[in-house]
């Protein structure tokens, strides 16, 4: 019997292993697709690297450029002048506090007279403001040639009078004036016309009153006034010498810089000429190059003119120090008010310190060498620890980082101090206590804050929060708060408040996640032990989620330091280290920030200048700070992780 023929079929092995793959250039398309997506995934890495590359490319040249500038600063002798000139600035501070003490003292006698005079003149100004239109028409009519018919003039006059009468009746007269005076003022104001140039009699009396009182006060505190004048005058001979030297140094610097510009230009032209093939072009380039030639500045010779005066300068400093020390010794102790007395005392203590600083500076003059090279570490120090950021200055640009950093840090500190309790409390409440309906209200609203553009918040800071803070700071029962009443509407506290508001959503969501991730078993165990809800929350859940909360705070900090528009609009943009001697009230001072300075100044500088490079350096530091904060947040989250069951 024939065996049934098995249908011919390919062997199983070959079916299973048959390659059905199409290949593209010898590569499996599946691999290609995979690589495509993998390549896109690496885009985040690439962008980070690119950010670093481009920041460094524009910014890294800052160190050599700034080094060169500082070298010129030294070689031209500007640094020499600054040795004396910098501590000399202290004189102005001291003398201004003396002046304040004097005006406070004078006020004890003349304040009421001055207030009355000022109030009366303020009222007069208000009347004038209200009657501008009519009085303007009248004075224009009076100037007309040929003169207008008297009837028309009379009409205009009566209009002016009517307006003045209405305005003077509508004013509120302060209590400084007695009833009779008020009436007289109103009568005099009602008669104000542009044709009468004399002051109304009562105003004249008030002004005379004040002058008399002021003179009286000045004789009473004559010794103080005289001390202040002497103190201010004491700097004059020294300042004269310093100014002369400064002018000389500046000239040297300008010449040196001009020479450098021309020289680089010449070299570039010559280089171009060397490459040029067309003989005519070449000749013209060479000619242009030779035109761009000046004599190099003989720095050694010019610096000699400055250093040779060192002895004279030292003598002047010594003389100045002696004069002011003598002045301090005879500074009167009687001042009008307690505040003035403390001020005078401060000055009395400050003057010897100042004199000492001046002597020390004078001693430095000898060891100063114009040809000492500026090391790269000095430059790095000058950037990271420099206390002044001065640009577009006719004297010398300084790129010191500290004022910006301190502004950024103080603002960030305020923001975090406000935002942390608020967002953690909100997170605990929504996560543990809130009903479903409350959750549906609170969560979307807080998440919505994230969508508010920062420039809008900055605008709110200018138009709403600034005025609000200023008004509140003028309430009389809040005067115990340090720094109240505040001077500037736009200040660090204002910016800190808005940034806190911006940071809340980030910190809230991350904290809430952290609380959510606390294992259920912990809560059950706590409940089973009979703990109340509050005990469970604060002794079990919050400690268990603390790592997440801390890392949320850190990420909030990163957000706050990197924020640009709010600080640019609201922080007040004064480049100075906050004056911490004012105590906690310092937070109401304006400041500038790392992010704000980039946004404000980058648009106005030319590419490749030292200023441009300095701004990119600030960018590099900001980038580094953001990486550091992120790293810390991750480290914190990992460090406190043992609670994960």
């Amino acid at each position: 019997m024939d065996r049934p023929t098995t249908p011919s079929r390919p062997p199983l092995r070959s079916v299973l292993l048959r390659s059905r793959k199409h290949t593209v250039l010898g590569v499996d398309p599946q691999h290609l697709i995979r690589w495509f997506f993998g390549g896109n995934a690496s885009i985040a890495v690439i962008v980070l690297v690119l950010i670093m590359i481009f920041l460094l490319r524009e910014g890294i040249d800052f160190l050599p450029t700034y080094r060169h500038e500082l070298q010129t600063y030294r070689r031209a002798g500007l640094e020499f002048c600054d040795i004396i000139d910098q501590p000399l600035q202290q004189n102005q501070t001291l003398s201004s506090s003396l002046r304040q003490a004097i005006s406070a003292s004078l006020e004890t006698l003349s304040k009421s007279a001055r207030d009355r005079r000022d109030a009366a003149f303020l009222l007069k100004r208000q009347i004038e403001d209200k009657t501008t239109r009519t009085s303007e028409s009248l004075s224009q009519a009076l100037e007309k040639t040929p003169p207008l018919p008297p009837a028309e003039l009379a009409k205009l006059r009566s209009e002016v009078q009517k307006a003045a009468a209405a305005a003077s009746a509508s004013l509120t007269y302060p209590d400084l004036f007695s009833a009779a005076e008020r009436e007289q003022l109103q009568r005099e104001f009602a008669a104000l016309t542009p044709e009468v140039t004399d002051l109304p009699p009562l105003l004249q009396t008030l002004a005379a009153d004040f002058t008399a009182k002021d003179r009286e006060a000045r004789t009473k505190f004559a010794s103080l006034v005289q001390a202040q004048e002497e103190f201010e005058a004491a700097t004059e001979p020294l300042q004269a010498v310093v100014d002369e030297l400064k002018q000389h140094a500046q000239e040297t610097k300008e010449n040196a810089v001009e020479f450098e510009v021309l020289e680089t230009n010449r070299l570039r032209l010559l280089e171009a000429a060397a490459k040029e093939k067309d003989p005519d072009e070449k000749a013209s380039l060479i000619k242009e190059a030779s035109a761009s030639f000046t004599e190099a500045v003989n720095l050694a010779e010019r610096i000699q003119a400055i250093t040779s005066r060192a002895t004279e300068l030292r003598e002047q400093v010594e003389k100045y120090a002696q004069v002011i020390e003598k002045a301090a010794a005879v500074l009167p102790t009687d001042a009008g008010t307690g505040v003035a007395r403390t001020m005078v005392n401060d000055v009395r203590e400050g003057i010897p310190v100042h004199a000492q600083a001046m002597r020390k500076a004078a001693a430095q003059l000898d060891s100063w060498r114009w040809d000492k090279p500026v090391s790269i570490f000095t430059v790095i120090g000058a950037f990271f620890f420099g206390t002044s950021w001065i640009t577009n200055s006719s004297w010398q640009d300084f790129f010191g980082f500290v004022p910006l950093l301190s502004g950024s840090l103080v603002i960030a500190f305020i923001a975090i101090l406000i935002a942390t309790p608020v967002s953690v409390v909100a997170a605990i409440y929504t996560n543990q206590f809130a009903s479903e309906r409350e959750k549906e209200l609170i969560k979307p609203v807080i998440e919505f804050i994230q969508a508010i553009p920062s420039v809008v918040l900055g605008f709110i800071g200018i138009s709403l929060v600034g005025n609000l803070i200023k008004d509140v700071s003028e309430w009389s029962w809040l005067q115990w708060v340090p720094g109240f009443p505040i001077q500037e509407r736009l200040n660090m506290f204002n910016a800190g408040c808005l940034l806190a508001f911006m940071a809340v959503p980030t910190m809230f969501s991350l904290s809430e996640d952290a609380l959510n991730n606390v294992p259920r078993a912990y809560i059950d165990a706590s409940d089973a032990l009979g703990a109340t809800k509050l005990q469970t929350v604060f002794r079990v859940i919050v400690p268990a989620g603390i790592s997440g909360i801390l890392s949320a705070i850190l990420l909030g900090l990163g957000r706050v330091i990197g924020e640009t528009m709010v600080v640019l609009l609201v922080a007040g943009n004064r480049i100075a280290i906050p004056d911490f001697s004012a105590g906690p009230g310092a937070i109401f001072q304006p400041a500038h920030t790392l992010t704000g300075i980039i946004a404000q100044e980058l648009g106005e500088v030319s590419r490749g200048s030292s200023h441009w490079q300095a701004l990119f350096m600030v960018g590099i530091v900001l980038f580094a700070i953001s990486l550091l904060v992120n790293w810390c947040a991750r480290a914190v989250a990992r460090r406190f992780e043992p609670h994960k069951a």
Partner: protein
Amino acid sequence: MSPVPTTENPFAGDNSGIQKRETIARWALRVGSYIVVIITVAIMLHIFIKGAPVTFQSKWPFVNTQFLTELPATLHVIEDKQGNHYETDVNGADAIKKKLGDNFRAEKTISYSGGGILGPIVGTALLVIVSVGVALFLGVACAIYLSEYAKHGKFLELVRLAILNLAGVPSVVFGLFGLGAFVLTAPVFVDVPADRSVFAIPLGFTTLSFEGWDTCVLSGGFTLAFVILPVIITASEQCLQAVPQGFRETSMALGATRWQTIRYSVLPFATPGILTSSILGIARAAGETAPIMFTAALAFKDKLPWQKDLPPLPADASIFAHWDQSVSRFLGIFTESVQALPYHIYTLAAKIPQNEYAERAQYGSVFVFLVLVASLAASSVLLRKRLRAKYRW
């Protein structure tokens, strides 16, 4: 000894004040959380009250069309001797002055505060289109890799770390990056490379020169794209992860390749979620100011990006007859610098003296801007909620 019987009720409530403390603490927490809500609502109300009158009007069509459809301009305010104020633009000012003649008293000009805000709106729209286009492409591809292909390892960790760090980079640093990378270095095809070109690759018919795109929509859009990239990646990855694993396993079991699985079993279910989440990215891109300050935005421009002094195309033929010119003109829109709403608000708030007229322009712009951004954010939230209800696995 038997216990002394007490008259106290052993089941009585706790008297030690724990209950009271609980209630007080609860209320303290509640007040703390509602403070944020109240402040938010107060700010919104303030902007609404001050801004709505500029944008809306009591007459038909109820919307201040002039404010929304005109370009920003300098506002001239003319006062006559009777104390009446006339608001007008440059051209109107002369006519009114002539009409008033002797009666003319004073004229004030307020920069940027007249006209409307069409220019900034258009600019912001263009920037958003470019940035979201770029960011969606890169971000979704990255998310697909992270969710579908990546295996645990060094590379994956590196990518995740980079995304986290990218999200934390300050926006002004992105601005510096955009300036250095796109404005000054990005490659363009030109016939003759400029002096500042980093390097140029001659291609025969043209040259690929790395000399940057200058400040334009393209530079700003690309910069913004990288600002919102982390948002888009994270959101897309979440949506991809939300598709049940079973879908992939079924598809693979039927013999589909990895790509077919992604294409037919994962993406269709994830796309709606990805798109709604990326609306948040749009809101973010529209709201950023610092990245576009140096890369795209202008304080003032009296033309829309497509209004250029070019000869009109011959009218006789259809647009296809001159398609190359039409295309190049269309692309030219993206190489123009534009005004943008957030930068316009910055200019109004910081660069001009404050007075009632400037304030009106400020609040109007802020209101419109906030309505745009808020409606984007709200629609994203609502759509997400609806999607969640629709796809329940």
